[in-house]
């Protein structure tokens, strides 16, 4: 017999893991982990803005993630400051700005920990609908641009030679990533979302021979991590978000040991 909140947590987590799998694979291939981190950090500012303006904080988070992605897409065009520096500056100034702005929110006790590390057990039906609709949209667009985006990832020169709009695809991918991260924070939090994106993808790399296998494998590893994390949280009473990340990391270690064993034989 499953409690309602547990059922919602599992549903939300599984949905998110399925969306994060293919996106995580692209993030690993394109070396954009730090970019994902930066988007997540900026989401806290979205929480504060949402509370100050009086709109839904989920909307606030998604909106600030999208805005940060746009600012970064423009910022990266200049080359005077390295893009990792630009990312670091944006990540931490938006995080700081978010914390300061939260101090101005009056009368509402904000559970910052819930935003930093996620609160999957508090996922409600609306959250699940948002995840389902937003996730379906993000995955649909990703499938639609899969082949050209992969070509851009392999070689921008080859892609450009064959009239693939390299810059436009990069921008669309960044915006989709912002959408996914904005939706994911409720579940695993600002500090852990990047892990849910990259760790399952890294595990899937061991067993994949094609990009598609790796993307699907990442979703499978992600779902397994979510289930294991929630189970851990349920039985040992650990915080759910970190438990999911620990499970993902555990699966990665297990995969690498299995792979070493296979190679030896």
């Amino acid at each position: 017999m499953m409690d309602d909140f547990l059922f919602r947590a599992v549903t939300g987590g599984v949905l998110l893991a399925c969306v994060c799998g293919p996106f995580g694979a692209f993030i690993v291939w394109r070396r954009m982990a730090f970019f994902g981190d930066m988007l997540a950090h900026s989401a806290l500012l979205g929480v504060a803005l949402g509370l100050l303006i009086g709109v839904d904080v989920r909307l606030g988070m998604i909106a600030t993630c999208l805005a940060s992605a746009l600012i970064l897409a423009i910022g990266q065009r200049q080359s005077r400051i390295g893009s990792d520096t630009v990312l670091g500056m944006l990540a931490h100034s938006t995080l700081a700005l978010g914390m300061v702005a939260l101090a101005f929110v009056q009368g509402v006790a904000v559970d910052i920990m819930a935003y930093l590390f996620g609160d999957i057990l508090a996922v409600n039906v609306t959250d699940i609908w948002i995840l389902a609709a937003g996730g379906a949209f993000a995955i649909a667009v990703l499938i639609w641009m899969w082949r050209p985006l992969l070509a851009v990832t392999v070689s921008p020169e080859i892609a450009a030679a064959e009239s693939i709009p390299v810059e436009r695809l990069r921008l669309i991918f960044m915006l989709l990533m912002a959408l996914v991260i904005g939706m994911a924070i409720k579940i695993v939090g600002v500090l852990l979302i990047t892990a849910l994106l990259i760790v399952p993808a890294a595990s899937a790399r061991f067993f994949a021979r094609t990009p598609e296998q790796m993307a699907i494998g990442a979703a499978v590893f992600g779902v397994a991590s979510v289930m294991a994390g929630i189970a851990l949280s349920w039985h040992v009473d650990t915080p759910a978000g970190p438990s999911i990340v620990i499970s993902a990391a555990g699966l990665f270690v297990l995969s690498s040991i299995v792979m070493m064993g296979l190679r030896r034989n």
Partner: protein
Amino acid sequence: MTAPLIEGRGLTLSFGSERVLDQVSLSIQAGEIMTLIGPNGAGKSTLVKTLLGLQKPDSGDVVRKNGLRIGYVPQKLAIDQVLPMTVKRFLTLTRAATRSACETVLGQVGAAHVIDAQMSSLSGGESQRVMLARALLLRPELLVLDEPTQGVDVSGQAELYRLIDDIRAELNCAVLMISHDLHLVMAKTDKVVCFNRHVCCSGIPDTVRQHPEYRSLFGVREADAIGIYTHEHDHEHDLSGHVVGDCGHDHSHDHGHSHHHHDHQKQEAETTK
């Protein structure tokens, strides 16, 4: 004359204070084979990126024929270990093809055995063969080859040049070949453009010498695929590639190039430091 496949007009580009392209104009006609030679650091790859539309010039335009199909073969394609990719999957990177079509083109370039191998496990020569197989699948009107034999040993280079010759004969496409090597140039080149941040000179290679050293090095068959284009420059470059002295020259091609080649080598050594 019909409209060119692709044309660069007055392309100028600077990175910071350094001018990498200076008023570069060139155009490629359908079926034409053009070889672009120049020393390392001459901006050849930047010019190609600009022509492909990846790099925006500060001024000047690139005009592409509508719907032009370009096949691009890079110097060296480094597919990251982190991205799993079989040769078969790579061949279908930008458009779908059946397995048997992939087998056919791989057979044509003598690389049928690697179809299920991972791209990251290929040797330099195998990797370039796969790139050429991809070009065959694509059936481009213009094949752009950016120093396609880098990282391949000398006898492998001659073999690759012969393959490129075969492919060009089959597809009947235009070819833009980039090379830093003054000696290895396709025999059937229609036009040689000497490039060092600007177009130094361009012309028709009037003699393809049958140099005995090449013959002995590559064997008769391979030597036929290789032409030698030598010429005399009428202006000098300083180490950063700027033209020294006046440019009022007649661009003649009386071939015998020893002094300038030497100069380029010196410059290469300088830029690779």
